[in-house]
């Protein structure tokens, strides 16, 4: 991404070509200047690019390489014994992997959907707030600004089966203290609640940024035309908000699909393997079982699936956005 960005930044100047009929010496001077500028741009960008290369590109490539490798570890370090497709074969034959994939998709769809609805409602309210908007924004940002491991630990206390306030509250109503993190359905719901609590403000702020860009005149015009609030929202606000909306969805899908910290603290993927996400499974296979090839295959396939999902989503939304124009 950044490489392209840098190229674009350098592009207009570097790509400025002399007109075909320009005299020789001037043309040569301009080309030389363009080259110098081009070179300088790449030179200045190269330290940052090198860092990105080392911390992002290399690990990604290496992970893909390992996903095709049978790796053994001995006293002299890592050894790749052979390159094979068997890691992916093992994945496709593993019920745990399908279960983790299913749970990850469910988790992503449910949390992102609810966060978008709540985030949109919050953004609409925030947009109408006057002087208190700044304060409300600051308050809203508290959950988002907490480190997830810390907030997950707080939720763990809330859900605790012996002392948790949620357990106590439910027991007041049902007279039977639940074991929230000990049952598959309630454990999954508990994870989703913690995620939604933390991330809704993020969605709200992105959508708010989109909302304030919509000119007031358009609302006034809609009002003059006798449009109801409901109809204004769907016909005026949503079409213009679609690009911002798409960004919010993409960010959230990417994050939710790779969720690790919440289930790691709250359930470790349990009870059983019912809340095991692909990231938790990859961690267990790679680090607990030291099964490097299959672990890398889980990581690579997860990236591939979420990448494809996002591409499909972008395509669908681009068409829809065009249709709305």
């Amino acid at each position, binding site marked *: 991404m950044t490489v392209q960005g840098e190229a674009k930044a350098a592009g207009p100047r570097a790509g400025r070509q002399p007109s075909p009929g320009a005299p020789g010496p001037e043309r040569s001077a301009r080309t030389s200047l363009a080259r110098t500028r081009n070179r300088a741009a*790449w030179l200045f960008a190269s330290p940052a690019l090198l860092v990105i290369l080392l911390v992002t590109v290399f690990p990604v490539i290496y992970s893909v390489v390992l996903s095709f490798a049978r790796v053994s570890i001995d006293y*002299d370090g*890592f050894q*790749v014994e052979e390159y094979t497709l068997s890691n992916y074969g093992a994945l496709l034959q593993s019920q745990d992997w399908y279960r983790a994939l299913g749970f990850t998709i469910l988790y992503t769809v449910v949390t992102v959907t609810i966060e978008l609805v709540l985030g949109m409602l919050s953004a609409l309210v925030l947009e109408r707030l006057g002087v208190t908007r700044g304060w409300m924004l600051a308050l809203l940002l508290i959950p988002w600004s907490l480190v997830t491991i810390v907030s997950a630990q707080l939720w763990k206390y809330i859900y605790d089966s*012996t002392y948790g306030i949620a357990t106590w509250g439910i027991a007041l109503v049902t007279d039977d203290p639940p074991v929230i993190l000990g049952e598959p359905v309630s454990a999954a719901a508990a994870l989703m609640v913690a995620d939604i609590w933390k991330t809704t403000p993020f969605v709200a702020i992105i959508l708010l940024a989109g909302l304030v860009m919509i000119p007031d005149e358009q609302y006034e015009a809609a009002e003059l035309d006798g449009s109801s609030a409901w109809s204004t929202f769907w016909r005026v606000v949503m079409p213009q908000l679609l690009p911002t909306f798409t960004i919010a969805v993409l960010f959230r899908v990417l994050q939710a699909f790779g969720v690790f910290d919440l289930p790691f603290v709250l359930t*470790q*993927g349990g009870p*059983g393997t019912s809340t095991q996400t692909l990231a938790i499974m990859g961690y267990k296979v790679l680090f*607990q079982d*030291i099964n490097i090839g299959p672990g890398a295959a889980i990581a690579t396939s997860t990236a591939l699936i979420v990448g494809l999902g996002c591409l499909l989503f972008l395509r669908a939304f681009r068409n829809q956005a065009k249709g709305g124009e």
Partner: protein
Amino acid sequence: MQIDRRGLLTGAAGLAGVAALAGCAPRAERTKIGDWPTEVGDEPVTIDWWSANIATNEGGDLRPRLIEEFNKAYPSVRINLVAAPADTDTNRTTLTTQIAAGSQSPDVIHGDIAWPGQFAENSLATPLSTLVPDDFWDQYPEGLRSAASVDGEYYMFPVYIDNSFLVYRQDLLDKHGFQVPGSWEEVVETSKALIDTGDVDYGFVFQGNVYEGMTCNAVEFVADAGGRFTDDDVTESTATSSEARRGLEFMASLVSEGVTPRASLTYIEQASLDAFTTGRAAFLRNWSYAYDTANSPDASSVAGKIGIRSRPGFDGTDETHTTIGGWGSYVNPHTAHPAAALAWARWLADEDAQQLIVREGGVIPARTASLTSPDAKAAAKPQYEIAADYTLVPRPTATAFYPKVSQGIYVNANSIAAGQSAVETGTSRMQRQMDVALAGQAL
């Protein structure tokens, strides 16, 4: 030289490729472990010791005391204590990639007795046979020696063993005129009666979360019923045997009959101890330190009101069972200070440290002679007396795939205890998953 985008990207890809190949390539050969120096010199040296807390008999931290005593014998070796996660799985996971990648630190690892199989298979621990005399190992009990070794090669210096015990509320038994239960059936009966009095919320609590502790509990209940989870060679699962089913069925009945709260299926050691020390539970299954902590007024509201006995068996049997828990020292094969690392790891397993553990520790020393020494008699710990009569039941750790085998046990045992799986289907699934794991085919 012209630096354009294409050139830079090509170069970058090349560099990444070279780096990837370099990562795959074997490293230069190092000093052979057999050639390691074993004598510590006078040069000051600092080694990193990766260790979670080791409890004192008052619930404190024994690690600084051990370091202090060691430095009297080895003043030139400075021990830098690196605090490790208390949870055994998190602890191991944090370590494995670090050592597998060739890190020189930590030099010495205080690790679980369940690790030798996996550590040997992946070269994460130093084989010790050539570094210490053969008769060194004679000072430990047979069960511990076999747990510390794989195919006749030792990988761990034993530091302490741990047994599980039944801790109970003596005051409540006295108040309501009950005897200390002599069997599981009596634990159930007494628990129900005590819950009915309203003095406790829970009867019996144990560690039922989806983790290694559940495997320990499941192994014990199955042993109580006369069974094992694998054959003797640890090559095949026997989880569908009638004994295994009976043990797990009893565990599930504890929950379904309300003797054990469902919350217990989310407990790890500390959570179960909390339920007991705050007075909510009448009986607790936990490791040796739990009795000391529950009896310490600083940490417990039931201090001075409790008793301890072996985990009971079922009606009609006198034999009592505990899994072998415990921790020992592993030496990082990549250590830059082999002599100092070896000296520290060995010292922890030898007489001086073991006697210190007897005098001040909240755990059971690994050395047989220390357990019966005058210091041990003077300490007058009930755990030591009970330990002498226990039948030790090993977990099926003697396989390189133990973490996956254990996962097959604890995931399904949790599911059976929670009533989510019937015993028949749960044990069938357990057997299938264990067999796949034992064959090295589990993902």
